[in-house]
């Protein structure tokens, strides 16, 4: 199932440092949304508030609301562990569990929280998730090899399979291709196109072509200067952002005149 994300008046802090200020955004289900903007403007920081991974950093906190199909993720009593099961995440550097086999990596999420499954259900899930991540054909003969024995691009697709296996509603990706070669990057972009049918996808990218290739909507973040908080400057259809944006800063950024 795919869900709608809505952030209202979101401020994000690292201790006393306000890193991102006053974000209001609505992300529709079954769409791909790209976050773009210069380095340090708070794209990753904001992305990590959408599955409550931000607060993993000591002293980090958030004010405001993030609604997932209307439910506030930051309401009192909400368990961040359950939020993260609904909102999966893929990181910039591929991070399969190094000591686990490929198969166990895919199953890592479903085995959590006391989850039990029959062997055949597990086999099905492993195959389905790896197929979903376009990795099945490459690894089906070596599911028991360690996850770290794969190439970087394969590892990243394994991480996507791992995220998909727990059947989240949303998948967040923080520069998922920045450590990959062009071929692997295309493989992941094709995959995002597929995943969009079932999930809400938010992707941070520094690659303008990638944003135009994969996303339906684009959010441009910017920062006034070092030590200042980042802001969401403009959010619109990707075609609008890249052809005739309303804000001058956006136009400067996407045309490469800045940042």
């Amino acid at each position, binding site marked *: 199932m795919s869900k709608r994300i809505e952030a209202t008046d979101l401020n994000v802090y690292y201790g006393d440092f306000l890193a991102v200020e006053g974000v209001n955004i609505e992300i529709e289900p079954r769409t791909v949304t790209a976050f773009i903007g210069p380095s340090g403007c708070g794209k990753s920081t904001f992305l990590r508030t959408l599955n409550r991974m931000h607060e993993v950093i000591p002293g980090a906190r958030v004010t405001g609301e993030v609604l997932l199909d209307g439910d506030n993720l930051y309401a009192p009593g909400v368990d961040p562990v359950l939020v993260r099961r609904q909102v999966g995440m893929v990181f910039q550097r591929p*991070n*399969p569990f190094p*000591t686990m086999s490929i198969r166990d990596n895919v199953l890592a999420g479903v085995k*959590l929280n006391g989850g039990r499954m029959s062997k055949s259900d597990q086999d099905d899930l492993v195959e389905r998730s790896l197929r979903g991540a376009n990795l099945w054909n490459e690894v089906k003969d070596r599911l028991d090899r360690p996850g770290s024995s794969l190439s970087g691009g394969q590892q990243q697709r394994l991480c996507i399979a791992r995220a998909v296996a727990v059947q989240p509603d949303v998948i967040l990706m923080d520069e998922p291709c920045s450590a990959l070669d062009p071929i692997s990057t295309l493989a992941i972009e094709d995959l995002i196109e597929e995943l969009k049918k079932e999930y809400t996808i938010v992707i941070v990218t520094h690659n303008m072509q990638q944003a135009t290739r994969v996303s339906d909507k684009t959010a441009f973040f910017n920062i006034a200067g070092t030590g200042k908080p980042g802001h969401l400057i403009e959010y619109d259809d990707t075609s609008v952002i890249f052809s005739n944006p309303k804000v001058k800063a956006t136009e400067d950024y996407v045309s490469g005149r800045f940042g």
Partner: protein
Amino acid sequence: MRAALRKPPSKAGDRVFLGLSTASAWVILLILAGVLVFLLVKAAPAIAANWADSSQLQDRTAGNTAGWNSFWPYVGPLLFGTVWSSLIALVMGTPVAIGIALFISHYSPRPLAGVLGYLVDLLAAVPSIVFGLWGVFVMRDFLKPFSTFLNSYLGWIPLFGGDLSVGGATILAGAVVLAVMILPIITAISREIFLQTPSLNEEAALALGATKWEMIRMAVLPYARSGIVSATLLGLGRALGETMAIAIIVSPKLIYSFQLLTDNNPGTIAANIALQFSGSNELQRDALIGTGLMLFLVSFAVNFAARWIISQTAPGGRRRRRKARTA
């Protein structure tokens, strides 16, 4: 081309430092070799002696070698006692040490973690004789109710069987104190390794919806496994050589016994040397040095195993080996 690859003339400072550090390395090797030679030379007469016919060794007014007909049956119970008491200490101490290390690295708030780490390090600075006295005056009495309980209800298990010690001078009390003594080294090493877990792996687990404990099981413990093993072995190395805990808490005898709660306990090599040395005659002292040689060899083997495991499976090392294999 070749000339360009040749070493440039080194500066004077480099040469001096190189000389100093090389010399230091050699001094350590020499000391080690010297100790080994000393032990071998001094122990040889006692190990080679015909114990049954030696008036010195059968002298019942001195030492505790009388009644044994060679060195090996004499050192056997001591080796057993050394390893046995150390193992009990490990079984009790390691889980606690790892628990403390995990608490410091992943559960406690920053300021508390600092204080705790400092306290554990302080524990390492307590002289072992103080621990020994604490064992005699506090631990013995403290353990009595537990010992009584274990002996009367679980006495059918050989470990807890036998005649319950009245005074509390049990090997259990000695091993508890040993466990406290090895706590700091195991805690310190494990804590360092837990803290080095790549946050990449930890975040991977958390982002899948792992609770803290699940994250620790998925990311931290697998990463730290070899480190924990070698920390434990280093703790074992320390326990093997520890003297006071057993020497003054337990009244050791030259026996094999697995019972934890009685007055009849095996001694350890270090405790036996400390207790017997002053009252022994010359050949008996050589025999004691022979037992010291055995302890040296066992400790050396354990420490060597610990280092070897670190070098083979340390996180960096593991990756290197795997690359080499797939290349």
